[in-house]
Each structure stands twice: as structure tokens, then as C-alpha cells.
């Protein structure tokens, strides 16, 4: 009985594989939100109409999880990824593993429109396509503006007990940025005390940003670590600004997302063409509305909702990347011990 079933499923699987292939395939490893919210579908349509290929996005969790998976695959039997999208704090790790092929403005003409201050990879493989700020986002039906914490310190107030959802810095780039924020704010000697002080405030620590956002939007928690563009997103799509970003104490942590070409790719030209399309004004102007981030291309126009609702922290923080690369493991190690093993 199972033999027949097995044969049937083998046939079905083979059939799907055969139907699915045929064209040259360009595989982009990305994070959940780029596919579920981001411009992936639009990119696929435009790119496949310009080039005779099958563009495939693979999202397997948050940005940090995807990098581990890619590195593990590369270690085991090679990866099928041609391009990889990551948050800028991964750059030290990416350089360590020599993952990206360096690119220049000659390879990617649109790179000339990206401001120098966003070009943060000394190796030149990590091409920024959007940036933003990690701040907090609250549910305005549960908390009023007056009730919000005026600074990170106030999060330890008992009135916020079990209200905050943050992301695991070991698995989520948003969570990692928040951890860096606390280090930039309280210093290496003080950040663990802060984390211990807000332990009663934390409802749970999710493995990625999508999960935290899902908990906010399903009424499971009124406060999450998220992006400063969340209010603008609500105004654009939900016709409601129920979920609002705010920068406690005027602070937020800078985050930059970029893409690079995996060294082992057999299609470097196609990959470069993809990055150029990603940096084109046409796609870049979609980012505020899909990725809910600020385009890296300085010629791209921002939608009116951004002018009105985008929260730009007066005091944006960002630790030097070489410091992050050097201390990352120790910080995560210490955080793990302070928060998980209390």
C-alpha cells in the first residue's frame, strides 16, 4: 500500500520539479518580510520581463537566521544562493567568511546615486538599498501618548509589565540592533543592568521581527521593538495610525539593509543586473510603501505619508562596525547569560 503511495508521490514530486525548471535560475536569499511585505513580487515581474530567467526569492526567517543557513549550506555541500540580502551589522561576519564578490559603480551604474555615508562595507561587496531606524512601536488603543516611556530607562516602570515584545538578538537583526542600541546608550558596563531591569516588562522574546509585529497586530502585546516608519505604513495602507512609532528620548538605532553577490555564483552578470534594478528609481520608490524603509537611492521620492509620519530620531545611534565585529560574540554571550539564564 505504501509502495504504491510512495511511487505516486515520487511521480508527483518529479513532475513539479520538471515543470518548475528549464530557464536559468537566479536565487536570492532574503528575509521573511522582504517577500511577505517587500517589493519581491514587483522585482520578480520586472526582472523576468527584462532577462530570460527565473528569479526566485527564498525567505527562511529573519536576516540573521538566513545568514547562518547560507553559511551552513556553503560548508556542507554548496549553496544555491546567487545573491544574499542582509542587515549591515552582518557585514563583519560576511567579511570574515569572505562571502561577497566586491562590486563597483562600473558594475552597477545606479550605485552612483547612493550617498557615500551608506557605503559601510570596506570590502565593497555589501550594496545598501534601504535604511531606517529601530525605535519602539505602540498600540495607541492600549497606551496613550502621555503614557509612553520618555526614555529607554523608563521601560522598567511596573506600569509596562508584560507589555514589550522584543526580538532575539541571536536570531533577528532587529533584535541585534536593539541590543546595540542599549550598548550605545548605557555602555558596555551598564547595558546588562538595563536588560535585567526590563525583564518584567518583556512579555516574550521572539525569534524575528515578523513574529513581534504579528503579536502587536493581533492584540497580544501593545509595545514592540520595530521601525520608525511604522506610523507612515499605517497611514498608507491601513487607513489608520493605530500602531505608532516613537523614539524614546529622541533616540533610535540606525539600520541599513544591503545585498551582495555570493562569491560562488555562476551568474555574476545577471546578479549585477539584479542589484542595479533594485537600486533603480522605479523599484526604490516602492520601498517606502513595501519595505517601509527609506530608499538608499537619494533621487527616489518619498511618499507624502513619510513627510508627515516618519519618525527621525534626533539622536540616531550607530556603533562602529569594526567594534561590532570584534565584540559581537561576547555581547551576545553575555546577553544570553543575563537574560536567558537568570
Amino acid at each position: 500500500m505504501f509502495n504504491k503511495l510512495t511511487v505516486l508521490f515520487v511521480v508527483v514530486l518529479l513532475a513539479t520539479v520538471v515543470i518548475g525548471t528549464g530557464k536559468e535560475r537566479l536565487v536570492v536569499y532574503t528575509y521573511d518580510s522582504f517577500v511577505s511585505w517587500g517589493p519581491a513580487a514587483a522585482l520578480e515581474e520586472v526582472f523576468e520581463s527584462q532577462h530570460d530567467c527565473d528569479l526566485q526569492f527564498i525567505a527562511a526567517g529573519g536576516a540573521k537566521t538566513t545568514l547562518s543557513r547560507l553559511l551552513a549550506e556553503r560548508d556542507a555541500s554548496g549553496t544555491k544562493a546567487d545573491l544574499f540580502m542582509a542587515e549591515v551589522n552582518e557585514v563583519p561576519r560576511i567579511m570574515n567568511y569572505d562571502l561577497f564578490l566586491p562590486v563597483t559603480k562600473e558594475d552597477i551604474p545606479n550605485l552612483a546615486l547612493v550617498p557615500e555615508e551608506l557605503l559601510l562595507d570596506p570590502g565593497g561587496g555589501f550594496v545598501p538599498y534601504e535604511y531606517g531606524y529601530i525605535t519602539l512601536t505602540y498600540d495607541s488603543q492600549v497606551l496613550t501618548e502621555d503614557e509612553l516611556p520618555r526614555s529607554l530607562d523608563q521601560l522598567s516602570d511596573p506600569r509596562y509589565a508584560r507589555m514589550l515584545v522584543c526580538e532575539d538578538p541571536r536570531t533577528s537583526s532587529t533584535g541585534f540592533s536593539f541590543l546595540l542600541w542599549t550598548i550605545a546608550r548605557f555602555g558596555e558596563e551598564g547595558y546588562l543592568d538595563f536588560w535585567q531591569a526590563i525583564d518584567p516588562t518583556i512579555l516574550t522574546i521572539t525569534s524575528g521581527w515578523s513574529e513581534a509585529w504579528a503579536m502587536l497586530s493581533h492584540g497580544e502585546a501593545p509595545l514592540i521593538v520595530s521601525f520608525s516608519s511604522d506610523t507612515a505604513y499605517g497611514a498608507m495602507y491601513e487607513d489608520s495610525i493605530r500602531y505608532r512609532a516613537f523614539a524614546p528620548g529622541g533616540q533610535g538605532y540606525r539600520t541599513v539593509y544591503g545585498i551582495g553577490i555570493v562569491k560562488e555564483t555562476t551568474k555574476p552578470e545577471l546578479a549585477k543586473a539584479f542589484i542595479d534594478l533594485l537600486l533603480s528609481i522605479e523599484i526604490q520608490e516602492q520601498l517606502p510603501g513595501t519595505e517601509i524603509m527609506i530608499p538608499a537611492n537619494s533621487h527616489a521620492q518619498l511618499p507624502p505619508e513619510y513627510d508627515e509620519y516618519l519618525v527621525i530620531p534626533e539622536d540616531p545611534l550607530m556603533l562602529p562596525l569594526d567594534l561590532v565585529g570584534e565584540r559581537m560574540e561576547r555581547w551576545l554571550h553575555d546577553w544570553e547569560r543575563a537574560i536567558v539564564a537568570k
Partner: protein
Amino acid sequence: MAARLGAGDRGQVKRGGFILFVGLLAFLGLVFYHPLFRVLQRGLTEGGKWSFSPLGTILTDGYYLHIIVFSLKQAIMSTLLSLGIGLPGAYLLTRYSFPGKTAIRSLTVIPFVLPAIVVALGFILFFGNSGWVNQWLMSLFHLSNPPLHILYSLTGIVLAHVFYNAPIVTRVVNAAWEGIDPEIDEAASSLGAGGIRRFVGITLPLLSPALLSSAALVFIFSFLSFPIVLTLGGARYATIEVGIYTLVRTLLDYRLGSALILVETALSLSFTYLYLKAEGGFAVLTQGSRRLVVYPLFVRKASIGRVFIVVYIVIISVFFLGPISSVLVDSLRVAGRWSCESYRQIFALSYNPFLGVSPLRTVLNSLFIGGIATAISLPVGTLIAMFAVRSRLPGRRLIEAILMAPLAVSSVAIGFAVLYGLGGAPLHLSGTLIAIALAHAILTYPFVVRVIRPVLEGLDPSLVEAARSLGASRNRAFFEVILPLIGPGMLAAAVFAFALSIGEMTATIMLMRPGLGTMPVAVYSLLSARQFGAASAMGMILIVVTAVAFLAIDRLGKRGTKCQSL
């Protein structure tokens, strides 16, 4: 039986059996013992040399010690609470008669075999901050904040473990209780012993093997729990299983991951040994000629005892039916209306970004993996059962224990062993469905053994002898006499293995890469994205598949020879 055959036959049986047995050992060596050995070796080497340094790191680092202690702590709490909730149920099932009693007894197997990720889903939908219970309480008492906080805490983890372990306590203890000879009790009663004294002095000692064995079982399952802790605990609560998963899959630290597996395996081997000891104690149970007297549960006479019984029944009904019903209802409601849309989504061919493939593909992956895993674990398990029943080798108990080793090795460890041992050269199974199917075959074959072994033990050897004396060849005797007799048992074992594979998430998540997701992994991904409708629809399919499978086993077990695998 072999002893009664002629000398020539015995030689033939031995030779054939020997070849099969060597083949079996070679296969298990390749896919299980050697990979597991390599993992354990990895945990005991540093820079290519034997060293205690990784183990030393684990055993001196406060973080890993915390994880180990937390695993033990939550397992002890889960065990005690499962006994507390399960025992009254066993008492009710034993001493009272009520309509639907047989059905309820059969249903006690369901929570235990439900995929843990579905239990987690049910808990979030029912007990979550925006779940049913909190919504009711908020609208009932006009509250602005959810009053009940049980998820994302130790309480949530323990309650979820109780959900799927308490029924097994009920089941095991009830079976033992009904086997007690009522005459002992009656004799004590006629000598003037009161109810409490008889319970403490007679019933409890007679039940203690069943209590110990079910407690040990609950303890081991809670100790090795993965999906529930991962989903309901968040990053702040980690068991050893979650710790290994984090080390291996996100931090890529194979060295410490292997060392932690070493510690875990040592612990779970000790616990499994205790469990098997306790289970062996079943043999001392008396089997009475008469059954216990049962009383009708529903009578008009009210008493304090009856009130307690009613309260207990109401609480456990809400506790057990709530999470399952919320999965069912949620799968059928879209945007406040009744709809089958979520089920349509599950069978959609279109790509789903949260899964990395189409939902239908995860269903097909599950069926494919289940089919291959069953096709491997059924013959492997049957051969081991035959060995256990027939062999007269010296040291066969030890060999049998070694053959059943996957029972004592955690799913994360088996997943990692396959990943680490078979992922690279020469087989290059890394990132294939076959790797997942092999891990499932290893995880399920001990259960095949447990189903088939009692069937073989119950086989009357004189039937085969009669066939042989009437001139049937050995093969003919096997196909026409033995096979029809053990057929229902084999079918039950196959269904069992298939259902276990369909619901398996832990080893799968250790081995999967994008595109290889199965149904439980899909439930996890959809649940994480709070796509509750699709997660619930997928969860319902898993509930139905496992429930049908295990009810079928229950029936097959009754029709054929006694099969008390659970």
C-alpha cells in the same frame, strides 16, 4: 519454536536469520550508530584530539548549567501536575460507568500523539493574550487588559506538557487498576479496613509500577520537549533540546552542540533505564478472575464526592477540548465569517512566502517522507521484534537494548546525527527529503518493535508446526500462516510509524532547508507569522490524520492479538 524444528531446518533458519540480522546491523550502523558516534566524538575532541574541553565548557558555564537545570525543573513540574490531573481520570474510568466510557478511554491516546506544534497552536489560540479565554474574561468583566498570563512563561510550558501527558497517565494507570483482583480489596474490607486504608495499603502499592512507569514516561517526554518550549517559551526559556538547536542551527557551534548532546544523551539514557525498570514491574500485577465493581457515574443522589467529580470533569473538558476546538473553529473562520478559505489556501499551488514553498508542497513532502520512513521502519522494526522474541543468543537483552537505542536519544540529536554524519561525503544527503525520511525511520522503528513484539509473542508456534507437518514449505508457512496472523499488527505498526512521521517536527527542523518544509514545520512558520487561519487548517489536517491513525491502531489492536504499545 526453533528448538522443535529438525536439525537441517534449524541451520537454514539460523543462516537466513543471520544474514538478515547482519544486514540490519549494517544499515543501522550506517544511518544511526556511526553518525551518532561521530556527534558524540565531536563533543569529546578539540583540534582533532580527544579532550574533555567542550564538555568542560558545558558543565562549568552558568548558561548551559541553567539550561540543564531548567530542563529538569520543568520536566519534574510537568510530571507532578500530569499525575495530579491524570490520576483522578484513571480513578473515574476504573470505578465508574458512564455512557461513552469506552470512547473516552480510546480518546485518551489522542493528546499524546498530537503533534506538539498543534498543541502549541491550540494553546496560543485559547490561552493567549488575545485568545478565547482572555477575550471572554475581558468582555465578561469589562477589562481593558487581558487578565490571564500563562503563555510565554514556565506555567505555559508546563500546562502544555500536562495537556499531552496527563491522558497517558490516565490510560496507563487505568489499565493497571482494572487488572487488580478485587478479592484482595474485599478481603481487607471484610477484615475491617477502611476505604483510605485499603487505598493506601493495597491499591497504591499495586498501582505503583504503573504510576512509576507513566511518571517516567511523562518525565522523559517533557525533558526532551522541543516544539512547545520553542513556541511557548520564547528566547528566555530554553530546554537542552532548544539549546542544542540554537547552537547548531543559528550559532553553527557544532563543538558545543555535540557536547550538549553528549550530556543530554547521558541523562536521557539514565532516565530511560529507570523507565524500563519500572515498566518491567508490570509483571507483578495480579490479574483477577473477576473485574472491579463499577458504579454508575450519573445518579440523582448528590454528595460532596460527586461535586468534586463534576468540577473535575468540567475543568478537564475545558482544558482539553478548548485548545483543540479553537484550532477547529479558527480554521473555519476568516474575517469573522464561516469559510473554507483557509483550507483552500493549504491546497494552493501558489508560493507562500512564510513557508518558502507552496503549502501543498509541504503536504506532499510530509506524505513522501512518511511513506519512505514507514517503508524503512516497518521491516527494520519487524526484524528486531523477531530477534527479540526468537533469539537465544547470550547477551540478547543487551543487544536488544542497543537496538532500541533511538528511544533514549532525543529527536534533535538524531536530526543532528543525520545532518553531521550523512550530510557530507560520501552520501551527500544534506538538505534532501531522504535525510529527513531516514531520521524519521530511526525515530519510529522502536515503536514498530513495540507494536509487533507482543503480536509475535502471542503467536502459537503449534500453528506453524501443524502447517509444516502437513507439508508446507518454510516460506509457505510464513506467508500463509504467520503473515495473516501478524498482518493486523504489521498494519497497526505501519500506521503508527506513518502518523509519528507526519507529526514530527524536531528532527525535521534540524535537517530542513528552505523548500523542504513539512506540515508541522508549516504550522510552526504560519504560527510564527500569526497566519492563524492557515496554521489552524494545516493543524486540523494533522489532528485528523493522527487521530484516525491511532483510533485505527486501537481497533486493530483489539481485533488481533493484544497490542498494548501505549
